[in-house]
């Protein structure tokens, strides 16, 4: 299962072709993405690495459909994003994607369980059912005993676990993580990556993780290097003790 050559025999879950994106106009214009081609497959955990300011977040935003691109095609689960009007794209995102950020972006007024329930509430699932599923999910990330805590009463690592539970609660096909360990210390970062591998990685899901933290590179299945607005290399990570 970890052998990526197997994965690549199936059609890509996310397919990027010729993505170009610049910010600003005239003298201040910076071209951040200069023609990105990339395929991401179900079942894999793809690390997107590269130096800071290289455009990783910009690329993630484009995949998520929350940033307009200048040129190129983005195809997610067989749906060309550019074909979807904004409203439909928002719904599509809510149904198929989960997000994990560097700043956990939890709602400070909501308890852990309520935070995790939000994506379900957005899908108009009843509050009691949403909370029930949220508690189950929190249990899976090891926070079964913290469901009624407010974010401010949780440690950084715990808050990121809540964020992971929130990202996974509606069983997304695509999990998008931007520097999920950057706000955490080394050991906590390692734990979060272990959790993402255990709970996040699934046969019918692709996980994209942006990072520039080399200490966590070994958690991925493949690693794509984004430099100067282009994918300069894609390598398959060999894992000791696996397969």
């Amino acid at each position, binding site marked *: 299962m970890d052998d990526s050559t197997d994965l690549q025999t199936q059609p890509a879950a996310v397919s990027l072709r010729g993505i170009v994106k610049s910010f600003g106009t005239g003298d201040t214009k910076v071209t951040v993405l200069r023609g990105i081609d990339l395929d991401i497959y179900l079942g894999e955990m793809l690390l997107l690495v590269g130096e800071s300011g290289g455009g990783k*977040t910009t690329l*993630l*935003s484009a995949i*998520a459909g*929350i*940033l307009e691109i200048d040129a190129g095609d983005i195809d997610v689960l067989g749906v060309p994003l550019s074909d979807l009007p904004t*409203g439909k794209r*928002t*719904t599509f*995102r*809510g*149904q198929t994607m989960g*997000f994990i*950020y*560097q*700043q956990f*972006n939890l*709602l*400070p*007024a*909501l308890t852990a369980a*309520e935070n995790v329930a*939000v*994506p379900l*509430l*957005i*899908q108009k699932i009843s*509050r009691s059912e949403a909370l029930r599923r949220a508690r189950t999910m929190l249990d899976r990330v090891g926070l079964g005993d913290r469901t009624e805590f407010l974010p401010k009463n949780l440690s950084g690592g715990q808050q990121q676990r809540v964020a992971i539970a*929130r990202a996974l609660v509606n069983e997304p096909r695509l999990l998008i993580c*931007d520097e999920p360990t950057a706000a955490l210390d080394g050991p906590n970062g390692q734990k979060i990556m272990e959790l993402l591998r255990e709970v996040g990685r699934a046969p019918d899901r692709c996980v994209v993780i942006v990072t520039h933290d080399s200490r966590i590179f070994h958690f991925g299945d493949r690693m794509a290097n984004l430099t100067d607005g282009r994918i300069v290399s894609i390598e398959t990570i060999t894992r000791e003790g696996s397969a």
Partner: protein
Amino acid sequence: MNYVALKMLFGDRAKYLMLLCGLTFAVMLIVQQGSIFWGLMIWSQSSVSNLNVPIWVTDPGIAQVDEVKPIADTAVDRVRSVPGVEWAVPLYKGLLRARLSNGDYHQITLTGLESSTLIGRPAEVLEGRFEDVLQPDAVVLDQWAVERMGGPNVIKIGTVFELNDKLARVVAIAKTQKSFTNIPVVYTTYERAIRYVPRERRTLSYVLAKAKDGVPVAEVTTRIHEQTGLGAFTAEDFGWKTIGWVLKNTGIGINFGTTILLGFIVGMAIAGQTFYLFTVENLRQFGALKAMGASTFTLARMILLQAFTVGLTGYGVGIGLATVFGFMTARSGGLPFIETWQLLLLVLVALLAICTFSALISIIKLARLEPAIVFR
């Protein structure tokens, strides 16, 4: 998501309280100023409303009730002969100086009522019997006279003072609406009133009248005016005429108008501004919701719910505080405070409008919001 919206609103207690304080302050300011203003207006025409008669007849050039332009004595009979008039009685009204036995002088308004009917008498008497005004030298004071002329120890039933060197004996204290000028009112009969005052060519100040049942008051006033050439006004019109005169000729209109308008603008600006800031500060949270698939419509509903919740709460608390303030000032009698439902409704409408407005601005901002900010 309504649940999430309310939790967001109440969750940050400090921000919520600040928001609530802003709105409460705005509402309180407007209701308080508006009620005092309205109270002053009611006071300014209380010389009309205190007499509680439907039609006032006098010189057509009259500007307001406290201005007296004497008319010929024959006016009473001329008004009586107008078809549709049920009764018409004379009223004397004039400024006089009262000299108390302790040597103090006080300016008073002498009000002379027709003796056989006592039409125009105050509805309520606090002490004594109004009918005793028919006794020799008897007068009735209003409760403000007691206050202005030295208090209940100096002025009480049986107190004797002088009007133009002629004796006046207090037989009753009547309850009236405080007037704007706060000049004490001394009631007596019409016949005795004109004996108190220095001889003048004309002594009749007003003719008070009532229309026959079934005849519209407005029609009778028109007929009186056409047949007698005198000015005839319904009590309501005369009250408004007086209010209009006060607004035009004293600083009250401008001063209070400015205060209320400023209170309104400042209050509403505070309200709108704080709410807008509240959303801006929560922009990241809304961005996260948007990234998780919440539509702009859903976010708009959440913001409107938040705006109306805090708006209505601020409205309730603000009115509550203003009313308590009103009770306290009314008890001390220093300032008039009349809270009308029209004012409350106006403030409610304005508040909801401003809440909707600032919510809309926030919504527009959210609609334009790139959910990509959550990655920053």
